[in-house]
């Protein structure tokens, strides 16, 4: 199974976690898995067979350059990971405040009030 198939599987696992779980923290974990699956998808696009890591070494100017893995999606995904971390931090801060107010972290109980 190639990494691309695996990332679609992770996407559906994350979506299942966000939709079906009742605890708020489990929903956040599902959202993190969802973000991680898109990162995996992007990175596995730029993969070549027998490609080396995209690090530039000084003797590459003299020897012929071998095939490198595409570094552009990796740079894009750094930004996406940062955004995922910020959203998770914000969600956890909101959960702290919700728990102080309602003393409950179950979404069925919270939506009744």
């Amino acid at each position: 199974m190639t990494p691309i198939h695996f990332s679609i599987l992770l996407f559906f696992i994350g979506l299942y976690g966000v939709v079906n779980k009742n605890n708020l923290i489990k929903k956040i974990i599902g959202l993190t898995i969802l973000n991680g699956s898109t990162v995996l998808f992007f990175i596995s696009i730029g993969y070549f067979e027998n490609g080396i890591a995209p690090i530039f070494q000084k003797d590459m100017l003299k020897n012929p350059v071998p095939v490198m893995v595409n570094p552009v999606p990796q740079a894009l995904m750094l930004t996406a990971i940062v955004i995922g971390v910020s959203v998770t931090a914000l969600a956890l801060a909101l959960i702290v405040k919700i728990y102080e107010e309602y003393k409950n972290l179950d979404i069925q109980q919270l939506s009744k009030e």
Partner: protein
Amino acid sequence: MKNSSIIKTISQKLFPFIMLFGVYLILHGHLSPGGGFQGGVVLGTAVILLSLSYGIEETERKIKIKYLSILEESVILFFIFLGFLGILTGGFFLKNFLPLGQAGGILSGGFLPLLNLIIGMKVAAGISGIFFILFKYRGEI
């Protein structure tokens, strides 16, 4: 959590090495995997390790959150200022204006090491700041 002297001693001995590794990641961002965000997270994790073993009150007395906030806010203005320097030296926003060294050296790549340093400081201050606010102040500030 009981006060465990093993964890306190080990984290005290390991703390400078973790900081060194974080600074290494930031400075070599244009040559090897790493860069501003990764190095900043390692630096923030070092502070979190210290506060988990010594207790948050004592760590926060050494690294005050007021200074972390001021560092975080002033660093982003410096980033935009570097962008404007790109305009002033006759190019576009965020254009490279420092000389490119030889490929593979540490001072190569124009102002990329400088930008990495700025982002590394911001992320380190941010991650430790988030940790302190969530656990010590319970979301208020």
